[in-house]
């Protein structure tokens, strides 16, 4: 089986996941206690409004037919109408997507910039002082609520030192770059402990390999040894770890956008929850799941591309 076969196989495996995801998102309506339409509309419920929602969601039909209606709309790119904004859910999501993608990309870049040097430093002398320090930090970091870390960064860098804006998305490329630094850093700091851990472990593995000893005895400089010979091979498992945690990463943006007032889809989700704007919450949940599935697929494929030893046949 060649490259296309591998891609086809991965895509085929996505089908049950995609169907399952839509079923869960579809069933969210039915998890609402009582009459969903009445609960969603809350104090604004009028018999007319309830009847309209029933008709829109097809609540008076049998379940399979409701699901079919849901899927039929989905295939036409129709995620429903927002109850609060009046606009279509898909247009709302499109307009809120760029800040979220910015935040994600920024966070990944910062994660790499922070964790690679630290992991190399820790692995360069096993059980040395540097190693212990680098290993102790994740222990503290793992139990730290992200939004709290965000506050600390805001307090330190925005309120006390005036280095970065307190909140917002900024305008233009440099504006985004500056405004999104603290949010990106907050997400990155939550992710670095995990990445450092795996990168350090795989660096230590690689440094014990015969070809490193050979390179050492040939008189390769330590700098070249670490950066060219060891790191290149150690980075592959770390990429996998990064990919596995992408679900966490994407979920984290929901909270970080809320703290830093970034108008992304995470903030759209939380705002819609407080407006009880159910179709938007449903739509955003679906989009988040699609993002995770796509990133995992890309990670699978890039993993194979990064490591020449990984063949496409299994």
């Amino acid at each position, binding site marked *: 089986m060649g490259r296309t076969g591998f891609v086809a196989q991965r895509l085929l495996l996505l089908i049950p996941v995609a169907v399952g995801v839509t079923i869960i998102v579809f069933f*969210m309506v039915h998890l609402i206690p009582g009459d969903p339409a009445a609960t969603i509309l809350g104090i604004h419920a009028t018999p007319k409004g309830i009847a309209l929602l029933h008709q829109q969601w097809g609540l008076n039909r049998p379940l399979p037919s409701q699901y079919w209606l849901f899927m039929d709309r989905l295939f036409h790119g129709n995620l429903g109408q927002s109850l609060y904004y009046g606009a279509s859910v898909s247009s709302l999501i499109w307009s809120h997507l760029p800040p979220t993608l910015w935040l994600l990309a920024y966070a990944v870049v910062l994660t790499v910039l922070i964790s690679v040097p630290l992991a190399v430093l820790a692995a360069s002398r096993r059980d040395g002082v540097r190693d212990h320090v680098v290993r102790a930090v994740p222990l503290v970091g793992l139990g730290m609520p992200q939004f709290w870390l965000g506050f600390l960064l805001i307090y330190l860098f925005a309120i006390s030192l005036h280095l970065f804006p307190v909140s917002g998305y900024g305008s233009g490329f440099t504006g985004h770059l500056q405004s999104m630094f603290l949010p990106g850093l907050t997400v990155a700091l939550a992710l670095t402990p995990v990445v450092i851990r795996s990168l350090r472990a795989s660096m230590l593995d690689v440094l014990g390999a015969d070809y490193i000893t050979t390179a050492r005895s040939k008189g390769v400089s330590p700098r070249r040894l670490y950066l060219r010979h060891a790191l290149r091979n150690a980075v592959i498992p770390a990429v996998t770890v990064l990919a596995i945690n992408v679900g966490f*990463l994407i979920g984290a943006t929901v909270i970080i956008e809320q703290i830093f007032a970034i108008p992304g889809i995470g903030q759209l989700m939380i705002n819609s929850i407080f407006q009880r704007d159910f179709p938007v919450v449903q739509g955003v949940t679906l989009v988040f799941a699609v993002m995770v599935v796509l990133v995992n697929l890309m990670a699978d494929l890039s993993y194979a591309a990064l490591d020449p030893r990984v063949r496409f046949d299994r």
Partner: protein
Amino acid sequence: MSTIEIPPGPPGSSGPEPASEPVLVLRAEGRHASRWYRQPALVAGLAILAVVVGLSLAAPLITPYSPIAQNLNDSLLGPSSSHLLGTDQLGRDTFTRLLYGMRLDLLIAFLAVLSPFLLGIVLGSLAGYFGGWVDSVIMRLVDIVVAFPFYVLIIALVFVLGPGKGSIFIAITLVGWVAYARIIRGEILVAKRQDYITAARSGGLSNVRIMRRHLLPNVISQGFIYGMSDIVQDILAIVTLGYLGLGIPPPTADLGSMINDGQNFLSTHWQLTTIPGLAVVVVGLGLSLVGDGLADLLRPGQ
């Protein structure tokens, strides 16, 4: 390297069932249990947890104030001898709310870790032991749940179920079981190829008995180890929901809503947000240390 060399009693002849257990217990105690106090991480973690749990359980004895009664004359006081950490905008003692909040969040987290643990272990064992279509169905289910970002699914579920403790339990259970199922399935896949399982099978033991008495005791430690880090994640989820205003409804003291309340006073009364967050960090550190120590204790080969 020693995982499980000692077969749990002679299969078939096992009329006296307990014969299988003492062997395992003996191995665990004889080799490692006597040394648990030599694990600095474990001891430090247990000490931190003991202090935190002790303080939160003894909250009514330690502090004379109520965590919810408002006293607007005393709002936003700085730290003093009568209010150790000052008061919040409604004149409630911050230290008191901290203790009661920690108590509630810890209780919910410890209870909320149990049901995903049990559900995950049952489903993971079934998938690993039977394989075939049982495995396929359960693992596809895992794939589907994993497709949702953790916080997105938790927030969406708590939203549709309505705020409160019950919704948090259900949401964490529905999302949390997958990790246990994956871990236990993997362990069972390895363990079921061992000779003692083949022996138990040919001895005519029932599947349920093999799983419960022979496989589970050997694989469950991985579930415990993961459980320690899972509690940390659950506490963070509960605090995050509280911060977003989706957790325990006010005025009940909860670390997340305390952080949220203090957010407006970040530049003038930084302790209102910082201290509850610090409490979460300390609890998380304690649990992580215990988890790490436990992992070292239960995985002697590594």
